[in-house]
């Protein structure tokens, strides 16, 4: 037994340096577009981002945080969240302080309303001119005061061509009895309601309770054909052919498709949700200058490219979208053309009373199933 243990330990100790050296590969960018000083070297920037939402050096990709550290000497303290709401909860509690956060559009709208963000000094964000103008001046930050777009995403319908006949073009297929027990939907109220709202032609940002009631009724109808409500499990379900139809984010379709070539993707004709996740600096940030430097760094062509290829979502950065070497250059799903572009609606921040109203409805929909 002891002998076995010592052999194991020896193997372990031999393995550690090997694995350490192999992951220290790509931690520098070749030619930064902006100039970076080392004035803030030794300080820390606290970054709070979605999980799996930055190129982290795995599989030979660029390790963005390490590259930033190498360039500026600023230590990146990186942590992540799994929903806008949990991020909001942490920030609101006041128990934590972050210098950079990357929430979605409607959450930025709420944060601005509640005076929780601080204006950015755009003079220092020298890479901001790379951002596609169509993602500037959006409803949540009409004067471009608080946010810098990081990623763009659209929701679409993913289906398995071996299980679905023809080419679906409507959300209605998610109610089709033919695919009973093979249909998935989102396990969060806003996205799930959104689909029903697009289908019955109700405003996704309605402040009228009757509209939400109507959508809830529609969702209850769906219960009898539904296999389940999923978020991340959608990957395993769709890749394994366990379900035929699922709505999900366009970028993630590419990940699923690479593991199951039978999958296809379509934007339903009734319209769909578009979202923009943007970098912001909270009011209680302690290292404002470093935060600006970090946000500027995220817009570096090399960094944005690495992130876009790692995350697989559409990049609002023109240096990425117009780069012929980009893995998804000209990809119609991520970057629909004028003609192929679906009707898109942003989710807006909704009045708290309506919010708790639809949360209640959502519970009743689940209990009904």
């Amino acid at each position, binding site marked *: 037994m002891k002998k076995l243990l010592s052999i194991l330990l020896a193997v372990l100790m031999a393995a550690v340096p090997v694995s350490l050296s192999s992951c220290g590969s790509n931690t520098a960018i070749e030619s930064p577009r902006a100039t970076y000083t080392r004035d803030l070297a030794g300080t820390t920037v606290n970054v709070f981002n979605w999980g799996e939402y930055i190129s982290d050096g795995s599989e030979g990709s660029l390790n963005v945080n390490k590259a930033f550290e190498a360039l500026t000497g600023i230590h990146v303290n990186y942590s992540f969240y799994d929903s806008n*709401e949990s991020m909001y*909860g942490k920030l*609101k509690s006041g128990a934590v302080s972050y210098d950079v956060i990357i929430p979605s559009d409607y959450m930025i709208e709420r944060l601005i309303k509640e005076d929780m963000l601080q204006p950015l000094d755009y003079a220092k964000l020298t890479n901001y001119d790379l951002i596609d103008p169509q993602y500037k001046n959006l409803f949540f930050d009409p004067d471009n005061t608080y946010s810098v777009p990081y990623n763009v995403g659209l929701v679409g319908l993913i289906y398995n061509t071996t299980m679905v006949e023809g080419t679906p073009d409507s959300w209605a297929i998610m109610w089709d009895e033919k695919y009973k027990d093979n249909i998935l939907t989102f396990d969060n109220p806003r996205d799930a309601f959104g689909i029903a709202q697009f289908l019955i032609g109700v405003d996704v940002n309605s402040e009228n309770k009757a509209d939400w009631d109507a959508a809830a009724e529609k969702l209850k109808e769906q*219960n009898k054909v539904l296999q*389940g*409500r999923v978020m991340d*499990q959608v990957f395993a379900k769709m890749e*394994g052919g366990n379900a035929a139809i699922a709505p999900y984010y366009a970028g993630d379709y590419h990940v699923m498709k690479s593991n199951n070539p039978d999958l296809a993707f379509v934007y339903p004709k009734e319209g769909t949700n578009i979202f923009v996740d943007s970098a912001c600096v909270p009011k209680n940030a302690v290292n404002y200058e470093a935060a600006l430097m970090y946000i500027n760094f995220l817009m570096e062509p090399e960094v944005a490219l690495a992130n876009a290829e790692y995350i697989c979502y559409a990049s609002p950065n023109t240096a990425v979208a117009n780069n012929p070497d980009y893995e998804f250059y000209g990809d119609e799903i991520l970057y629909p053309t004028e003609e192929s572009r679906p009707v898109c609606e942003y989710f807006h921040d909704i009045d708290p009373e309506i919010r708790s109203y639809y949360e209640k409805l959502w519970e009743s929909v*689940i*209990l009904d199933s």
Partner: protein
Amino acid sequence: MKQRSLLQRIIGAPYVLWAAIFIVVPLFIVAYYSFTDPNGAPTLANIKNLGEYGPIFRDSILYSLAATVISLVLAYPFAYVMSRKREKTQQIMMVLVMLPMWMSLLILTYSWMNILERNGIINTLLSKIGAGPLTLIGTPGAVIFGMVYNYIPYMILPIYSVMAKIEPSVLEAAEDLGSGGLSKLYRVILPLSMPGVVSGITMVFVPSVSTFYISQKLGDGKILLVGDIIERQIQAQNNYNMGAALSLVLMVIIVLSMALMKLFAGDTDENLYV
């Protein structure tokens, strides 16, 4: 009650302090949140709203009761057989029971998702012999199964530990006095093992009734238990107050069930964990 010596008090002090800071104070915070609104003003609204969650509380209790009964039925004979084996075999069986506990509940549950899936391991095997596919995941059965799978060691271990203490001579005496088979089980083994059964029931029921991960993953988002609602209130709706009120009710349910079990256990000295 024996008087505690000074030394005992000194040794116990860190524990008392620990319990005060990390158990008692948080309980008060939960109670405080339950009776206030998000702005800190006192209110009974959270408690009044609890009524809406009646069906969810009912489901949680039913699911965890089912899991507890199934665990007991499976664990009891297993624990008995285990306690009568040679010491070496007992040790091996003990390791086998403990083995799944070395892994995170999250990983275990995620693995079961893949096993129970439409094209999962079970259905692939079934289709090889021309049966099924069965709908396994997303059913109440899958959630109860998940609870049993994850918590059954907590049923086996306390029952086993009291069974192991039953001297073989006691059983022989029972037989000599004409108590064989069922009667031996009924009159001798069962009463002697009661403290273990009571601890086991509590230790399976309590985590089952408050679970959220198992119901979400194995229920395919179609089953809501109290734990899920509490998680949603706090994570998705940022309503700490409602979440706290729900937790408070859950705690009351747990304390009541433990009190009930204590009643059943009677005045034996061997109440292991209750």
